[in-house]
């Protein structure tokens, strides 16, 4: 499964980091990092992260 965050609308709420810490994280500069290619076993967590994103910035393909 492919995960994409549209950084032109992400406002760094960090909800995705809470919902799926295996996939989303903040680096030392506080910038959002994520795994672009994720094992399907984590689908439920990634979907929860996409739902929890107030800016609707996360796309799953």
């Amino acid at each position, binding site marked *: 499964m492919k995960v994409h965050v549209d950084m032109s609308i992400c*406002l*760094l*709420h*960090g*909800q995705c*980091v*809470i919902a799926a810490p295996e996939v989303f994280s*903040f*680096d030392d500069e*506080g910038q959002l990092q994520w795994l672009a290619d994720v094992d399907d076993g984590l689908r439920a967590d990634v*979907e*929860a992260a*996409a*739902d*929890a994103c*107030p800016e*609707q910035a996360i*796309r799953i393909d």
Partner: protein
Amino acid sequence: MTAAPRITIVGASLAGLRTAEAVLAALPEARVTMVGAERYLPYNRPPLSKDAAEALAAPGADAAAVFERLVLKSRLATGAVDMRLGVAAEAMEKDALRLSDGTVLRHDWLVAATGLRPRRLALRGAEGRRFVLRTFDEAVRLGHAMRPGARMVVAGGGFIGCEIAATARKLGLHVTIVEPMEQPMIGALGPRVAAAMAAMHRAQGVTILAGRSVAAVSDSDSAVILDDGRALEADLMVEALGSHPNVEWLEGSGADLSNGVLCDNRLIAQGADRLLAVGDVARFPNPLFGPAPRRVEHWCVPGQTARRAAETIAACETGRDPEPGFAPMPSFWSDQHGTRLQSFGAPALAEAAEVISGDLTQVGTEPVIVEYHRGGRPVAVLGLGAPPAALAPHRARLERALSPETVE
């Protein structure tokens, strides 16, 4: 399992949409109907007091283009749900529901996702200058009136009132918040943080009249009259005084509708065992904060309760008991004058607030983190302009501290 269950979801906004998705993920054979009073596809409300409000106030604003950006992304396949938009649920008829277009829908499960509507001032007159803000149509109407230089009174300084005040300042309006309590947002944030936020609003040019309420509006001139007799000149007034749960359509269902729909921890309504409630309209006990059922008006709640309601329905349909102990962590954010507030937990339940990083006199210029306590234990963490990476460890600590039954 018997025949595919018929599930009617009333309210086609965030909570209704997420419930439809979760129900179909758990029970792909379910027949789901969504009934929504607004004629729009489910859309996102928080921007209506923030960037969408600004966009709608721009001269020659393209409302359709603004709406496009608000539509909620959905995982529903086209046609997976029977969507009835622009139709309201009117009344219950035993195990069926009568709609405003005369249709009667039968169901095995009914999910209330009808949210809230703004509370209005109990005053007559000056309707053309009075506004509320919950729906896209209301935001469009308000946007037209938010002209630079206009004088705006915001009656009620909750989050929505404070956000629209900040947006209006940015647009060049003259803004006065009339707040009946000692400070705007005091119930949600407590006195110390509310005072710091009030100072930030004043520094940004918002006038705050606290401890005052609107007593009358004049039809003949542009006056708004306060309870102390003072008259304010106002080209427009936004009524942001809290809200009423939309539950009238459930009368006679057997459910307790005294403040939203009273549910148990499975989200099944007490007194109506085929009815569940999700989102802003649901009043349910959260073991993180003790046994008292509460309604929570935060954006995160629709998603959390939708998944829970779907689990409950799926468990009952397959003859299982739903897992006990639904304990979602509440969180909310708010944007005011370019400063983001981000909260985890329940600051409104706290007895005391402690600054754990930064300085409350610097809100708006420097990051501040506040921890809220009740009975000596943390119940919430709030960041004011704090980067999410700095808040994350505090949230994790809060989660550990809030193990069920530690509060109250």
